[in-house]
């Protein structure tokens, strides 16, 4: 027997009280950890996207929301496939690369994934009509990556990787890293999507972006299995930076007035704003939890101290020092804080793990350093709330409490 064991036995003896007193602190810490975890991964994804994204202009249906960068093209309304030709046959200069897409959510087994139909480069290039345009030829001349003005869209030209798939047959599919892991598939395996069998042509490297959760198939195959003929949900355009600043966007808007044309910079800035808002929200929650958690724990400790006046009196009677009574109560607060911090971290991390893909379309995993912060904040709150009750408990006269029977 020692003071710690005494505290532990008492806490264990009143589990229901312990749980109810911890609720506020666990939920509070959980919310903070959840928001911050998604926030951190969201920021990382934006950074990775800025580096890796090939396209810097998105043509989307008018009704599409771009509040969330990651979901802009998923489940969006559609636009006619003809718009691709319209762009390519127009006199708009500076279109270096172009990729029409059709994206929808699909369920395979019990798991949900994002299916994206893409048009490989060889198909675009093979269209006789398009070969007559200047498509892809201006990069060497007008868009040479050199000047500082290229930074105006949030990244430098030399960082851009002209993403695009050279070829993707009708019956082939490409799997994002997370999809391959979830479905335990490797190259050459078969995968049935809706009614059609596909062969896994390639497993994509992990990018840390929404692409990790996507299955890419040929656009025509996607249109066929989804029953959406000649329609697409987005056109990604690799526009020449000089051309963009020369009014390419307004020309595109004039050409396709019933679409929403936006640059990656705009979308990412929306996401950055969202991230900032999440960060602010987590700070507000931190302040709230500091108050609510302290009051909740303080309230529990106060009730606990009053309920245990007699026991504290007994301990004082047999020779326990005031400082030891103080220590007992702070030890209790410490244990409550420790448990609250761990449970809050787990709650937040598990929530983020499941909520991240749903609300932010990003894969989220645990951030170990957060457990340290969770525990420190939780213990701090718990001790803060217990200081006054502990101070009064230590001042209880030894015998008066025993007589209260």
């Amino acid at each position, binding site marked *: 027997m020692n003071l710690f064991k005494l505290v532990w036995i008492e806490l264990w003896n009143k589990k229901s009280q312990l749980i109810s007193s911890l609720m506020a602190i666990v939920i509070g810490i959980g919310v903070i950890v959840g928001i911050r975890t998604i926030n951190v991964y969201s920021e990382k994804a934006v950074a990775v996207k800025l580096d890796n994204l090939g396209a810097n202009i998105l043509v989307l249906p008018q009704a599409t929301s771009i509040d969330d960068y990651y979901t802009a093209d998923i489940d969006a309304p559609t636009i006619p496939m003809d718009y691709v030709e319209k762009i390519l046959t127009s006199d708009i200069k500076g279109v270096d690369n172009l990729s029409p897409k059709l994206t929808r959510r699909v369920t395979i087994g019990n798991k949900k994934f994002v299916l994206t139909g893409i048009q490989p480069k060889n198909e675009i290039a093979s269209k006789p009509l398009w070969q007559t345009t200047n498509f892809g030829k201006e990069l060497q001349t007008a868009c040479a990556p050199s000047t500082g003005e290229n930074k105006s869209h949030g990244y430098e030209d030399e960082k851009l990787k002209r993403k695009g798939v050279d070829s993707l047959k009708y019956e082939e599919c490409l799997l994002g890293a997370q999809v391959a892991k979830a479905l335990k598939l490797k190259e050459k395996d078969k995968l049935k999507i809706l009614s059609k069998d596909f062969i896994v042509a390639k497993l994509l490297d992990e990018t840390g972006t929404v692409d990790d959760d996507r299955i890419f198939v040929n656009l025509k195959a996607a249109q066929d299995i989804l029953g959406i003929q000649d329609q697409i949900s987005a056109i990604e355009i690799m526009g020449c930076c000089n051309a963009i600043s020369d009014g390419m966007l307004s020309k595109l808007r004039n050409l396709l007035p019933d679409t929403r044309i936006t640059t990656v910079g705009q979308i990412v800035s929306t996401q950055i704003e969202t991230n900032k808002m999440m960060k602010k929200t987590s700070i507000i929650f931190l302040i709230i939890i500091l108050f609510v958690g302290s009051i909740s724990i303080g309230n529990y400790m106060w009730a606990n101290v009053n309920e245990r006046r007699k026991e504290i009196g007994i301990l004082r009677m047999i020779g326990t020092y005031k400082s030891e009574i103080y220590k007992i109560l702070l030890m209790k607060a410490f244990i409550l804080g420790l448990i609250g911090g761990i449970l809050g971290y787990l709650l937040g991390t598990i929530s983020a793990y499941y909520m991240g893909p749903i609300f932010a379309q990003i894969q989220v995993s645990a951030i170990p350093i957060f457990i340290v912060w969770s525990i420190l904040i939780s213990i701090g709150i718990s001790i803060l709330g217990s200081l006054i009750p502990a101070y009064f408990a230590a001042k209880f006269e030894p*015998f008066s409490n025993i007589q209260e029977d």
Partner: protein
Amino acid sequence: MNIICTHNLTKTYSHKDGTIDAIKDITLDVEKGCFVTITGPSGSGKTTLLLTLAGLIRPTSGSFSFLEQDLTKVHDSELAKFRRRNVGFIMQSFALIPYLTCIQNVMLPLALIKTSNQKQIEEAKSVLETVGLGKRLNHLPRELSAGQQQRVAIARAMVNSPSIIFADEPTGNLDPLLSVEILDFLKEINQKNNITVIMVTHSPVAADYGTVKIHLDNGEIKSIN
């Protein structure tokens, strides 16, 4: 040898209607190994005297000493140290911690004097066997009868080998048969272990166990036999 000495010990309580002298000018010498009983009508100051001698409440004036060490004005932690090392308590309401088992309750005083866990267990077991509760080590107080609970309290009072045991109406909640059993036990502890016992009681039967019988009235000693 005197284990406790008091000189003009007075305890006054303040009240909205004025002050009340719970005990007045008590001068007393208690020899080591005595069995002292304190009797008197309700409100005569018996419990106040007991608690003051035990270092649980401070006198308003006068002095008291334990083995010639003046404890009247020592720091609160010194009084606590005095209690944990030298004193055992037996209360009418048993004063057991309800969520601790018998053995854990008895181990508590040893834990306060930093005895090793193994030794705590050994000594608590031994003393619980002495009071006849060797088979109830892991029972909670609520699982025991009143007499058994009081025996646990006695075991706790004995376990740190105190010089003195203070008992406040130890048989107040017990039937006559159990009362005799507990009183016999206290007598045995007093005689075998040479532990001084100071007991407050209303019961004339219990009072007869004393080798020194103090009668209080209105906060003053009326007689010492």
